């Protein structure tokens, strides 16, 4: 029976090639998209799957009223293990901040980021310890465990075990994205003995280049090199805490325990109102976002959004299937009638058609898996993926999930057509050889409804895509308010900026050099300060971002000085007296005419240091473009201690590469240890929009698919309309109808559907797109022209598709058709 069905299904697919191609193509591209999302979720689920005790390992979270932290107070671990030994078998804590910056062995100086972990680390987690004893590697102070990769970088072929390395701490940022030092100084932590090598290539949310024993911290505290406090219950961003529960103990047992601990510790503290919660190890990688995360991963929200988009594409492909199946029900009606008179029950016919659509689903899966290979490559090229822990390897379970998915999709697409087709009564189908009464009435409405929905989806995505692209265009063309061209930014890494400046300025191609604490527009921060203003204009207080700059900064970056003067070279380096503000700050301070702020005195910081405002700049963009707001206040302060970058402006005519190599040579002569770190400002700014372009790529891709799929669907419907009216066309032509009359006759049915779609989608797309557009401070205005343009494109593609079919049909030789009848 099955064989027979499959045979018929295949012959049908081959016979109606256009429809098969439309269905399989649509389903396979949309399935590929969904497979990618499945792969994404699956790969996230697989992260940390290699720990043998994973079912018993939980992470403790600190939960505030409306947000939660992945980290906990340092003393919590000890407290829990001492008081609840019947529940907890083992405890591991990892400091939340990175340690390191540079690890030195002999003349190898390698930038690496490590973590403090306590001695139970390798007993609880199953990171492969290539050498060293899991129980003791992290016991002694000043022990270091290197990853295989770090060991090779530092030691090459030499066996590192027992060797001593120096560790320089540069105060790394918690999120080790770019190893950005938070301060421009470094501390030599001391000599560490390599006690073990671990191979951490299996995907885990715990990322490190090396581990240092937690017991080191106490020694460092004694030496004054660390200010960690082990009994500080008020700071819950200090450490990540993992518990290994006793065999057979459910994590629900922890709930009352954690509640007790929190109420014991915090009931008397006004300022702190947190409770603790636990999270299974397996949940860490696919769950909601927690503050202070150990590593970046795809937040579940993104997966939801992607899944939603994937489903939209999938549904439009299923729409096509349903639509075309309904449209073509006539061509199958005779078969259904014959089968039923030969004894087939409705159930058997239903089964046949469901099997057929499942077959289409499986066929599409074959192509989808091929497409997936391309799609994953493209996806992994997205900017965001350099920070994600993904494992896109195939395994049999995943393959089964894929097959199951395609069967589901096939079944889903087939269920409506199958129940419709199987309801045909044999007498009607066989008697009415023409079958004209079939598929009329309600079914026609349903089909029209489906066409309208496809029109709607296309139009919505066309409008959205147009808007996204114009917003991207707007952002990339947006002027920052400074001149980033011909500027190269160097990271000072502790070097004295005047020494460097004096060396570099020798080169005639270099026009100017300035210094700053962060590079505007690249996502860096120096922090913010409180400003107090008691002037004649009234009292005001506000918090403002600040940037430390030298006297060359404003002219070098060509920032507009609207009033007052720039800093002068003669100012004292350590006693801050003057400040320059931007227009937004002036306005927020109460100066309605911003220029009048010049000459006034403001007080800043905890100490209420009095500073005289000597200048006013325009509101240049200093934040990331995607986050910037023209109303953000900014203070430009002369604080040479905070300088972390220099901006080198070269002549437009000069060769960037040769200037870079010149600067690198100078750098190497001044600093023997740190490598030369530079970025071309223009490229750097472009890169900061990378996450945004990721989103554009994804949405653009989804839009493209949806539009293509619905166009394909339309093609199918138009082809069918023409096909089913062959006889009518023939008769009309014989009686003198012209090609253009017939084309109009065949196409006009789509017009009202198109207008319904426009009426529905116009306002809807306006509303939905305004929602996300509002999130940008710098945004294009959503002009109705975008909707009109979208409609135009939609009309052109839609009716182009329809006409391609109807015109061919209208050109047919009528006599040929009638003779065949």
């Amino acid at each position, binding site marked *: *029976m099955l064989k027979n069905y499959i045979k018929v299904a295949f012959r049908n697919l081959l*016979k109606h090639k256009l429809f098969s191609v439309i269905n399989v193509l649509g389903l396979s591209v949309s399935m590929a998209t969904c497979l990618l999302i499945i792969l994404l979720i699956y790969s996230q689920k697989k992260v940390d799957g290699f720990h043998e005790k994973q079912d018993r390992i939980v992470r403790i979270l600190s939960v505030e009223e409306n947000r939660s932290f992945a980290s906990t107070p340092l003393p919590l671990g000890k407290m829990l293990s001492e008081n609840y030994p019947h529940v907890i078998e083992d405890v591991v804590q990892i400091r939340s901040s990175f340690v390191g910056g540079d690890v030195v062995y002999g003349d190898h100086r390698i930038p690496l980021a490590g973590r403090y972990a306590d001695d139970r680390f390798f007993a609880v987690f199953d990171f492969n310890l290539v050498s060293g004893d899991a129980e003791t590697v992290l016991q002694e102070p000043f022990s270091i465990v290197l990853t295989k990769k770090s060991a090779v970088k530092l030691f090459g072929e030499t066996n590192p075990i027992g060797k001593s390395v120096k560790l320089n701490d540069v105060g790394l940022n918690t999120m080790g994205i770019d190893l950005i030092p938070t301060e421009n100084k470094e501390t030599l932590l001391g000599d560490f003995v390599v006690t073990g090598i671990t191979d951490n290539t299996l995907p885990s949310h715990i990322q490190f280049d090396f581990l240092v024993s937690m017991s080191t911290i106490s020694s460092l505290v004694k030496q004054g090199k660390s200010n960690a406090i082990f009994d500080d219950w008020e700071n819950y961003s200090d450490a990540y805490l993992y518990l290994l529960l006793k065999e057979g103990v459910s994590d629900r047992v922890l709930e009352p325990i954690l509640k007790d601990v929190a109420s014991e510790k915090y009931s008397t503290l006004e300022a702190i109102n947190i409770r603790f919660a636990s999270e299974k190890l397996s949940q860490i990688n696919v769950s909601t976002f927690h503050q202070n995360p150990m590593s970046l991963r795809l937040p579940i929200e993104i997966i939801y959004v992607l899944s939603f988009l994937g489903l939209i594409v999938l549904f439009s492909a299923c729409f096509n299937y349903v639509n075309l199946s309904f449209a073509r029900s006539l061509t199958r009606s005779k078969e259904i009638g014959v089968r039923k*008179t030969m004894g087939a029950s409705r159930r058997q016919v239903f089964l046949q058609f469901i099997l057929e659509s499942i077959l289409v689903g499986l066929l599409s899966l074959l192509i989808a898996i091929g497409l997936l290979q391309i799609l994953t490559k493209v996806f992994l090229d997205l900017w965001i993926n350099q920070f994600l822990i993904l494992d896109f390897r195939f395994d049999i379970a995943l393959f089964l999930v894929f097959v199951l998915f395609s069967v589901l999709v096939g079944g889903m697409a087939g269920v409506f057509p199958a129940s419709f087709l199987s309801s045909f009564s044999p*007498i009607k189908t066989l008697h009415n050889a023409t079958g004209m009464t079939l598929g009329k009435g309600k079914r026609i409405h349903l089909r029209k409804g489906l066409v309208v929905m496809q029109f709607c989806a296309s139009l919505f995505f066309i409008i959205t895509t147009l808007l996204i692209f114009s917003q991207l265009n707007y952002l990339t063309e947006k002027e920052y308010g400074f001149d980033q061209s011909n500027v190269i930014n160097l990271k000072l890494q502790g070097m004295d900026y005047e020494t460097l400046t004096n060396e570099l300025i020798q080169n005639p191609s270099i026009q100017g050099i300035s210094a700053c604490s962060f590079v505007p527009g690249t996502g860096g921060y120096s922090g913010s300060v409180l400003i107090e203003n008691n002037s004649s204009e009234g009292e005001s207080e506000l918090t403002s971002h600040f940037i430390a700059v030298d006297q060359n900064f404003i002219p070098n970056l060509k920032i507009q000085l609207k009033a007052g003067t720039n800093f002068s070279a003669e100012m004292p380096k350590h006693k801050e007296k003057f400040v320059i503000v931007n227009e937004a700050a002036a306005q927020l301070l109460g100066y309605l005419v911003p220029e009048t702020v010049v000459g006034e005195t403001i007080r800043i910081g905890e100490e209420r240091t009095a500073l005289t405002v000597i200048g006013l700049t325009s509101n240049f963009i200093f934040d990331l473009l995607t986050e910037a707001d023209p109303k953000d206040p900014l203070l430009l302060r002369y604080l040479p201690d905070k300088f972390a970058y220099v901006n080198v402006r070269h002549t437009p005519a000069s060769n960037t590469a040769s200037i870079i190599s010149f600067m690198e040579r100078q750098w190497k002569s001044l600093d023997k240890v740190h490598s030369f770190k530079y970025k071309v400002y223009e490229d750097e700014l472009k890169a900061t929009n990378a996450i945004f372009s990721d989103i554009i790529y994804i949405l653009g891709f989804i839009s493209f698919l949806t539009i293509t799929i619905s166009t394909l669907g339309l093609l199918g419907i138009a082809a069918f309309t023409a096909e089913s009216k062959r006889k009518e066309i023939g008769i009309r032509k014989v009686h003198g109808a012209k090609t253009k009359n017939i084309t109009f006759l065949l196409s006009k049915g789509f017009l009202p559907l198109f207008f319904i779609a426009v009426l529905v989608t116009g306002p809807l797309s306006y509303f939905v797109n305004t929602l996300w557009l509002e999130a940008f401070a710098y945004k294009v205005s959503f002009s109705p022209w975008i909707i009109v343009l979208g409609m135009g494109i939609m009309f052109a593609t839609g009716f182009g598709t329809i006409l391609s079919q109807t015109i061919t049909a209208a050109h047919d030789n009528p006599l040929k058709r009638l003779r065949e009848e």
Partner: protein
Amino acid sequence: MLLQLKNIFKWVNSGGQRIFLLKDINLQVEEGEFISVMGPSGSGKSTLLNVIGMLDTFDEGEYHFLDESVHTLKEKHRSNLYKEYIGFVFQSYHLLDDLKVYENLEMPLLYKKFKGSERRAMVADMLDRFNIVGKKDLFPAQLSGGQQQLVGVARALIANPKLILADEPTGNLNSQQSEEIMQLFKRLNEEDGVTIIQVTHSEKNAAYGSRVINLLDGRMV
């Protein structure tokens, strides 16, 4: 007695008016009969045949088939009944275009729970009996009308029905082809004892049968 129709009425409502398709049909058919139904176009021949074949319902009257009262049966039982005992032959053959000859023959067996080996044996037997072994791998479109109808008859017979219902089986055939089909019906009726009810417009074809029923405006005359 194979089947009996008692006071069968069938009507449709059109524009508030009741139009009778079948009026007070009384008919008894014995096993082994060969009946021809005749009458002008639109007189209700096909309708009657469909009612007998249980493909169509009626509005009034009683229908007994073997020991069952068809008019009281549920849809499912009715279809089981015709599945088991009745074979259909159509004017326009109604072979499935996507199936080869032997697959067309096999198709009814698929719905009757025969094993694969049994099915193959039955199909082979039929191909043999109808002398179309050489055509078994062809598609219907590759056959002449007469050959297609031969396959149609073979398909109707394959599950050994007691009754064959044929609605103008030779309507699309030339006279020589129709003669062959009629000869075949006669043989089946005489040698195998298959009961046959055929609708025909031709006196010549009707003569093959043992009894002629004439319909006029849905009424037996």
